[in-house]
């Protein structure tokens, strides 16, 4: 848990992407003139493979550098406040400002149990100091409400065990992100590899967080999730946002969507 401002302040943070361009080996992968994320609670980002969705996410998190352009976090949304240029932030400061992204590929702490992973996010940072060697019980008790909640909600088995299956590790990754109480949450294909019921629970949880004031952006291939969850959808193809609108609006343009995504998705 990072010491974040109280989520009860309802101003939703947004991320402004301006003139952002990224090329790999001469091929332009992302080229966005102006994109504002976070105006609505949950936004979806869809598109065919190679559209640049994951690259854009990585650009926001500054895992990938930008060739050009700026990506700015506006903690209070469009109202007031200076923006924080995300490309200048060292990676651990991202979470400090409330910007968190789940991982598309499985990322795990091999030697840590499920409890450990959850506590890493949920326990107060003040306990993680070299001299606080008797603070485990306090840290655990203070975080137990939240850890218990996710243990039950997501159906983890024995919390003192290690996450073994790929799906379990993916779920743990998402739980870690959620427990950080992010203000801006990026989910990169969160449901890939998860069973049906778990997907529903994750989405429910995401909805809950969004209602409390978190801005959420989801990249997904599972379009059912997108249609059910998102208030707004951006359709990316060949590095650009070619369409933007509510799920209904996007689905109305079925020919365009199907051209990229194949039939039967709309």
């Amino acid at each position, binding site marked *: 848990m990072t010491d974040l401002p109280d989520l009860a302040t309802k101003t939703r943070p947004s991320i402004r992407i301006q003139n952002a361009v990224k090329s790999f080996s001469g091929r332009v992968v992302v080229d966005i003139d102006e994109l504002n994320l976070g105006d609505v609670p949950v936004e979806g980002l869809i598109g065919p493979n190679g559209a640049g969705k994951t690259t854009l996410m990585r650009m926001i998190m500054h895992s990938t550098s930008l060739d050009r352009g700026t990506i700015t976090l506006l903690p209070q949304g469009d109202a007031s406040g200076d923006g924080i240029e995300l490309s200048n932030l060292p*990676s651990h400061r991202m979470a400090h400002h409330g910007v968190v992204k789940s991982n598309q590929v499985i990322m795990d702490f091999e030697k840590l149990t499920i409890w450990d992973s959850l506590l890493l996010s949920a326990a107060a940072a003040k306990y993680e100091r070299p001299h606080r060697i008797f603070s485990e019980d306090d840290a655990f008790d203070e975080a137990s409400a939240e850890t218990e909640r996710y243990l039950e909600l997501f159906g983890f088995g024995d919390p003192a065990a290690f996450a073994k299956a790929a799906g379990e590790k993916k779920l743990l990754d998402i739980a870690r992100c959620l427990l950080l109480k992010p203000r801006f949450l990026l989910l990169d294909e969160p449901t890939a590899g998860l069973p049906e019921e778990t997907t529903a629970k994750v989405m429910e949880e995401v909805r809950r967080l969004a209602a409390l004031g978190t801005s959420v952006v989801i990249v997904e291939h599972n379009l059912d999730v997108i249609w059910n969850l998102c208030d707004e959808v951006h359709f990316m193809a060949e590095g650009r946002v070619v369409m933007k609108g509510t799920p209904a609006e996007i689905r109305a343009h079925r020919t365009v969507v199907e051209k990229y995504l194949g039939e039967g998705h709309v």
Partner: protein
Amino acid sequence: MQLIGDSLVIGLTEHAPLVLAAIGFALLYRLTGLLNVAYSETVTLGAYFGMWVNTTFDLNFYAVLLPAGILAGLVSVGTYFAVFRPAKRRNVGTLELVIISFGLSIFLRYTLQYVFGYPVRFYDVPPPQTWRLLGTGVSTFRLLALASVAVISLLLYWFIQKSRLGLQIRALASDEGLAQASGIRPLFVTVLIWFIAGVAGGLAGAFYGVGSSVVPFMGWRQFLFILMVVLVGGTRGLGGVIVVGAATGVALAALTLELGQAYYAQLVLITGFVVYLKWRSRRVAETGKV
């Protein structure tokens, strides 16, 4: 002005073996990705082999160079088969490989004492002639070292960059799967790299040894500088290693003359290298973000 002349002459002739050793280490590091601490023992063993051939068969120094190099090369190949290849097969991580090579370095350094004995050893060679170069005296051995380094560097440079076998080596280094698919025999090429690296180290050791004495720690004493030269110069390939190695030798000489003690020179250069490496790693910014 005299300082520059002296530094150049002394630096290049006294520290020519450093360049040679760095070349060998760079071959392993750049082409196999392995930071091999035990490489310093090929230097030591080269000195011991040369001394042994020299004193046992009563051959002059120039005649022992070839056997010294070859024997060191064979030891290098031996360590590949005995330790590094099996370790790779077991998927040992990079950090663990470095620690293993550290253990191997220790093992070789002490085991050789059972073979060659504990006392300090010396080459049995007549005192070298002294020639004057740019106002400083240098021994013929040192001049030979410098000449050999120049010749071997050029040979290796040409070999790696221009020859067909060299192309195969570089192909293997950059993409093993693809190289194998192209018909390159990875085992043969890898063994060749280890052998050449060992020969380079062994020759360096022989040159170090003939100039002073042959002791078990002589290779280890050079290791830090070999490593630093390769880390700094290696990003520009073999040429970079040679240039940085030569520059280090000259800098060591110049600083020793200025500060009065070889140890101070080393201290200044160690600090300089570490600071430079830190600065350079900062510039590569934050890789490995999630």
